[in-house]
């Protein structure tokens, strides 16, 4: 942070910080919104710690005198220590660790189940193979049951949390960056910049996201969630941009902006330091709702079979599994609940934000 010699920016910055502190203060007094926020925090924790919660690879293990963390393979398949491939572990750790180095030890995930495949018989000494099909109802070993091919639903859901949150945050991150930048420029400069930006926004609004994603998945060599996020982000910025433009139109004639201009601040400085912090509050709300919508879109696409390529761990793909056999209720109930609660949580957080930041609503509540 640069500290300019003038006094004004400091003076402007302080009330801005006060605004957010005040908003947080009000937000904290809304029990529903706080519960939702806590739930989102819980989801984030589950997403990050997924390989330690459910997996078949040790979180940490000591093998032939060295420490390894094979569970990192769940984040990226290249991160699996090579020694286990060279020693022909073939993806089965418990038995091989004991056989190939009796002195080894390992810290295992809480639940020994894999999100991508069915656990085989005796993979964990003494445990039978995962049941499949109708026999895979929830049990002690498979908390949420198994899907048709015997893959544990709990493990899939835990690992699917990461996908759901990533899709929500990354796509909305992209959308927010574009929307804020474009909206700010249009609102501040007005004139032909505004005209071009507004028309572009309208054109992008006309693009049906779902169709675009389907078309994209047909062309690309390897459809990944990252490409899906990019499309969601590149098409989802229009609402944010419009709100941003409106805020800028309102604020650019405010006295503090005129004052900043009067002391010689350039447009860049005015936009970033003076107007933007004051214009952010209204766009936080559509961003939060956007996250919920993106999660829903991803689940929808996976449900239709256009999501990540198999064997994806995504909530929507579990619902897709359920489609072929509705008697396996656990394939609908658990992921359905998860999607519902997550989307609800984000919407509640968004609503809380709106209440906490909107001065008019604030007045009304008093």
């Amino acid at each position, binding site marked *: 942070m640069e500290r300019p010699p003038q006094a004004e920016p400091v003076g402007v910055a302080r009330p801005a910080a006060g605004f957010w502190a005040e908003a947080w203060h009000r937000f904290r007094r809304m029990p529903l919104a706080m519960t939702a926020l806590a739930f989102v925090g819980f989801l984030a924790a589950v997403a990050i710690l997924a390989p330690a919660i459910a997996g078949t690879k040790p979180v940490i293990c000591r093998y032939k005198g060295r420490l390894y963390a094979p569970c990192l393979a769940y984040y990226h*398949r*290249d991160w*699996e*220590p*090579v020694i*286990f*491939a*060279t020693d*022909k572990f*073939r*993806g089965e750790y418990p038995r091989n660790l004991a056989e190939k180095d009796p002195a080894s030890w390992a810290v295992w995930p809480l639940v020994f189940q894999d999100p*991508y*495949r*069915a656990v085989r018989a005796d993979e964990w000494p003494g445990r039978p193979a995962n049941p*499949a*099909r*109708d026999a895979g109802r929830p049990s002690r070993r498979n908390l949420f049951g198994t899907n*048709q*091919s*015997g893959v544990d639903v709990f493990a899939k859901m835990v690992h699917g949390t990461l996908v759901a949150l990533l899709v929500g945050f990354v796509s909305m991150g992209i959308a927010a960056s574009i929307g804020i930048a474009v909206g700010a420029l249009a609102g501040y400069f007005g004139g032909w910049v505004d005209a071009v930006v507004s028309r572009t926004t309208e054109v992008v609004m006309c693009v049906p996201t779902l169709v675009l994603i389907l078309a994209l998945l*047909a062309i690309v*060599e*390897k*459809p990944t969630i990252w490409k899906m996020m990019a499309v969601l982000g590149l098409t989802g910025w229009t609402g944010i941009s419009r709100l941003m433009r409106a805020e800028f139109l309102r604020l650019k004639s405010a006295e503090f902006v005129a004052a900043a201009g009067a002391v010689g601040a350039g447009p860049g400085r005015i936009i970033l330091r003076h107007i933007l912090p004051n214009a952010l509050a209204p766009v936080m709300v559509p961003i939060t709702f956007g996250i919920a919508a993106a999660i829903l879109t991803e689940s929808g696409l996976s449900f239709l*079979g256009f999501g990540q*390529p*198999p*064997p994806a761990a995504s909530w929507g793909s579990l619902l*897709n*599994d359920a*489609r*072929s*056999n509705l*008697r396996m209720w656990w394939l609908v109930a658990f992921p359905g609940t998860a999607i519902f609660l997550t989307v609800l949580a984000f919407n509640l957080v968004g609503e809380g934000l709106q209440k906490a930041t909107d001065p008019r609503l604030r007045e009304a509540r008093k």
Partner: protein
Amino acid sequence: MPFSSRTGQNLVRLLRVPLVAATVAVTLAGCGGRRAEPPPKPEPVLTPPTPEAPADPATKPLSEPAPPPRAAAQAPFAPPPLEAIDGDTKWIDRPVRDALPDLAAELDKQPPLATVAEALALRNDSVDHNARILSALGRLPAAGQADLAARVDRHLPADLNSTNPLLSSSAAEQDVLGLTGFGLFSFDRHLEPFAAAETVARWQTSVDGILDKVVLRDDLVWSDGRPITAHDVAFSYRVIMDERVPVPAVRSGTDQLRGVHAYDDRTLVYFHQEPLATNVWNINFPVIPRHVYADTWEDDPTLKDSKRHVDLEAKPVCGGPYEIVQRSRGQEIVLRARDTWHTVKGKRVRDVPFFKEVRFRILEDPNTALLALKKGDLDEMILTPEQWTTQTIDDGFYEKNTKATAPEWVSYHFAWNTKSPFFSDRRVRRAVSHAFDHERMLGTICHGLYTPCTGVFHPTAWMATKKPLDPYRQDLDRAEALLDEAGWLDHDNDGLRDREIGGQSVPFEFTILCNQQPMAQEICTLLQQSLERIGVRVNVKPTEFTVLQQLMLEKKFDASFGGWGAGADPDTASNIWATGEGRNFGSYSSPEVDRLFAEGRTEVDRAKRAEKYARIQELLWEDQPYTWLYWRNSFHGFSKELRGYVFSPRGPFHYSPGFGSLWKPAP
């Protein structure tokens, strides 16, 4: 009714469309399935009993990678006058049969294992119950027993690309156009070819096997009232053989002919280039009305784009027992039995079909279709194994329906592109076959309903090898040894096998294409898991079916999951295995296989032919250009009102009489 049979080996869309062809290889010949179900009556002679030795197989252009120049010979063809032909040709009469009474006679010799009431009360949960259901309900009606005003609602898993029989290539099109199309030849449920008595008066073959002469019946009319003549057939041949017309599926097989000539309205002679065992199939091609297309086809050789052809798409002129009366794209196609088929000039000349109306409902999702079947909105559909085992066992299903199963010659495989850097080495392909978890696939994914597949021919077919081929089982040690031997080792120590190709280290990571059916994806995911254990990385890419077909045709793939429905004649397989052939997607090439196919085509002795094809199966099994997975049986759900379904190796419908034997009892 004649089964218009441009139906060779077909690319199969898993569980949904039993037989979908990309470019259908069309030479159906010979017969098969005899060992499975011995027919109680003597079979007609199939092959012209010519004692001559087959032509020199070396002259066949099969081993050349370029498209075989077969069509070249027929351009300057000028047919000799009929008197000249009749003068110095000795003719042998060939079978002209009515498939329906023949089937009735065959069924009558097998006493029913249960009464109809008993069979309808049964649940199909054992081999014995299945046999009883088929035996009691798979019967033809006695006189007056069938409700000739009945309507049947059939399931169509995909819409038709075209209603023009020349452009037909998928199973859905076969289902519809088999009822509306006009044909002279057909084959029965033992895949024995014959001329249909409904359309042909006489069929003769010359002793040297080089000519076929057909005399049409004189009481045939198109749905617009104009007579069907031999000129229509000769005209259709000309259109099929024109390079501008996009009918590759129908052309292959027909291109083996030198020419087809109509001498008058009824007399037709087919001129062959060689006395091939497959000639009997080559003369079987769909027929379009000359008076409709004669003026329009050259202006628009696509047969689809011009205004006139677009109109004909919606309401084609039909030559079969049914005509299309309504077509809503993506929803339904309604056929109605046309009076001009069975009654000409006030005289009943043919049997009235068992249904007045056939309504095809297009439902792409098998689960939606099953709901419709349970509700009674559909009368029949193909069941997925999952539906068979879990969703058709309760009262909700048996209230209105029953189900039946039978072996079918449809097999599934992983196809390897032998031109890709990964699979050019036979050892790699074998390693992958060893690495795959076949037991899990058969037991869990396929519900234990399918049998393992050991190569191109069904074990019950006459051309299958007698040598017991051992199905592959998962053996990771062997797989790894083979990969090591082929040079795929983990040189750069990243947990992934790699190999130096052209100075570059290529990691063993490939993409496998499959359709979007859950079962296909599950099987490919299983391959992924299996190979990951030995340091090979697989990406599964579910692909929309038409895109998949296109990628296969352009050979832009490393591996793919797919299936083939067997053609009636083993020669159809040459389209898949011979060097440079249309559906040899994996670019497999073996001079010996090419030679054996060429020999098999000219060999007329059934036993000697069988040896050649058996050898082909063994060679392919050794080379593993495919990893063969399983034979898919056919599983069908039928309304309790339906009777008369009899299964063939090509399922209950795709033969003659096929669907024509189904009926509903009069109330």
